[in-house]
């Protein structure tokens, strides 16, 4: 496999696979806690690109499958929306 330090899982916040694996190993935490500790999934795209992978890192590190009691959230809006757009601008 490619060097886990080089492999970026969350591109918005630039979090590497190594960083996720090390954090997951050290804290044996939930996917949500991993997200809060590393910021993976908290960037501009709203975690839509990396959420599955963050779940999988947790599964690999702790054996917990992704149906945690506090899951990685899907909050509306489904995509980032600016206040300008909410205010009526059409881009």
């Amino acid at each position, binding site marked *: 496999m490619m060097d886990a330090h080089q492999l970026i899982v969350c*591109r918005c916040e630039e979090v590497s696979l190594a960083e996720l694996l090390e954090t997951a190993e050290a804290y044996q935490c939930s996917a949500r806690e991993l997200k809060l500790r590393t910021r993976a999934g908290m960037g501009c*795209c709203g975690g839509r690109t990396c959420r599955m992978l963050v779940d999988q890192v947790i599964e690999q590190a702790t054996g917990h499958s992704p149906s945690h009691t506090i899951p990685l959230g899907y909050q509306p809006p489904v995509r980032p929306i600016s206040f300008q757009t909410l205010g009526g*601008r059409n*881009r």
Partner: protein
Amino acid sequence: MNQRIVHHPVLGSLDAGKSLHFRFNGTTYPAYEGETIAAALLASGVRTLRVHEEKGTPRGIYCNIGHCYECRVTVDGVPTVRACMTLVQDGMEVTAGVVLPTPLKKGGHSQ
């Protein structure tokens, strides 16, 4: 440089629309009507659309379907516009994202 595919075995020949011009970081680039900012820049050999706000590493087209926001640029003063989903308009001013200050972070900087 023009890297457009003008003849495609499945899609047929490119029916180029009206030719337009827009600016990206101060340089003028050509485009055809109906092309996205990302496509027009790629056709001119521009692959880096911005740098990561904190780390300064380069970013360009990743999904090209409006999903990942990697291609976000500033268009006519409006930030966070997806270059892959926005059609070029004549005279558009497009600028790349830059490294932002991180004064509160350990080892951070203030501009």
